[in-house]
């Protein structure tokens, strides 16, 4: 473990901080279990917060209509007494069982989480960049010329850059890097852009001034270079192919949901979802449960309200795993109220 890597111990590690992951904290809290959530997105709420915060949801029991973003805020308020921990902006990469029987989840940033129970509430999986279907694109990833995000704009100073895409991200980076790059070519499949009108205007202005090269109705179809990218092949809809020498190619086509590393954890999968036992939504790995959109079973419906139910039942079995030998008695919140968990004191 690196000097800066964090180490977290808890009762339940929840992978995915969408609505179902968040509600799990409540049900676990009623049973005095602590939770820690991991999510690749920088804020809790999953798709609801990231993709459709302003869309109304009509099938949450008791709410004739609730905005997705408001539902997330309410869930956060509801679970606050149980003091969940969060690892945000990090992707759960590794799930492995320790010699002591507990599970260890390590993120792409090296944060280590250890608990007897893991809930996978990963929704559609993690949102990852959409990669253009160019056969050898993998050869130029990881610092060899192709990047799907701009992490550090400095990298492109004085370099030749080709950007592909027509949305806000492609337009914004074209505008930004026009000043930094030695040369910049923007390739878009259509002649119209769907980005913000102001950005579209700026890009067209840059092209008119000759500060960028704008190639529309065209796609990047080939990459070549020895060890590092040197050239892209651009296919124009009507004018044939042309080659453009470049140091970098940035395909910026947005994000698409992928199962990602979860598919390599030894879980039983069925049509890209995790197969579970509907008794308690347990997976084939002992102590690992899958709840919400990421699981599948006969009759499965991908609904938030079904995910809440799944989380509730999974917590009952999770209690037995986390507290072997202890009896669990079921209590209504109307009878006992909510007793939060105390602030955790470091061991």
């Amino acid at each position, binding site marked *: 473990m690196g000097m800066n890597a964090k180490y977290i111990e808890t009762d339940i590690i929840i992978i995915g901080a969408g609505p179902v992951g968040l509600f799990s904290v409540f049900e676990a809290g009623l049973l005095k279990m602590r939770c820690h959530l991991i999510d690749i997105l920088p804020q809790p709420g999953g798709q609801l917060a990231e*993709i*459709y915060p302003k869309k109304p949801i009509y099938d949450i029991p008791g709410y004739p209509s609730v905005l997705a973003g408001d539902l997330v805020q309410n869930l956060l308020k509801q679970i606050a007494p149980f003091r969940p921990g969060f690892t945000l902006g990090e992707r759960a990469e590794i799930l492995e069982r320790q010699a002591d029987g507990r599970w260890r989840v390590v993120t792409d940033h090296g944060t280590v989480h250890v608990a007897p129970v893991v809930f996978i509430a990963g929704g*559609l999986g993690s949102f990852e960049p*959409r*990669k*253009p*279907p160019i056969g050898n694109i993998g050869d130029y990833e990881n610092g060899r010329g192709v990047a799907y995000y701009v992490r550090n704009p400095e990298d492109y100073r004085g370099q030749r850059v080709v950007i592909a*895409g*027509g*949305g806000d991200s492609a337009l914004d980076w074209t505008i930004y890097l026009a000043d930094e790059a030695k040369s910049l070519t923007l390739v878009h*499949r*259509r002649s119209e852009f*769907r980005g913000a009108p102001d950005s579209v205007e700026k890009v067209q202005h840059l092209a008119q001034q000759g500060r960028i090269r704008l190639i529309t109705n065209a796609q990047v179809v080939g990459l070549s270079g020895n060890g590092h990218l040197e050239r892209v092949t651009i296919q124009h809809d009507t004018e044939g192919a042309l080659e453009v020498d470049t140091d970098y190619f940035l395909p910026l*086509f*947005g994000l*698409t*949901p992928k199962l990602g590393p979860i598919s390599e954890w030894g879980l039983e999968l069925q049509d*890209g979802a995790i197969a579970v036992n509907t008794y308690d939504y347990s997976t084939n790995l002992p102590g690992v449960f899958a709840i919400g*959109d990421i699981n599948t079973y006969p009759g499965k419906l*991908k609904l938030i309200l079904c995910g809440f139910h799944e989380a509730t039942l999974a917590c009952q079995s999770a209690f037995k795993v986390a507290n072997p030998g202890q009896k669990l008695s079921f209590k209504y919140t109307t009878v006992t109220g909510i007793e939060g968990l105390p602030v955790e004191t470091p061991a």
Partner: protein
Amino acid sequence: MPEHVITVTVIDRENQPHRLEAPTDMGLNLMELCKSYGLPVKGTCGGMALCASCHVYVLSEHELPPPSDDELAMLDSAFFVQANSRLGCQIRLRDELEGLQVQLAPESE
């Protein structure tokens, strides 16, 4: 043909045509229909025009409602897009679509 059932032809990625009977009174969309027949359409996002895994080419001359902004935005970042590209999840099955013919677009990463 009973009322409120139409026939839709879906050509899969191996060029095999499948004739599907589709109810039009259940609010089904084309992505859901393909999935219910076990065709290789993922429908990852559940029909919110977020993933393009139900991308099809419309082969027949049916007049479809124009794509929404969400669908256009998605098609803009999808691959193998042609002039007749649509997202199956955005095509609501209606009586007027009797005889609709579509082809599944290639899968992309």
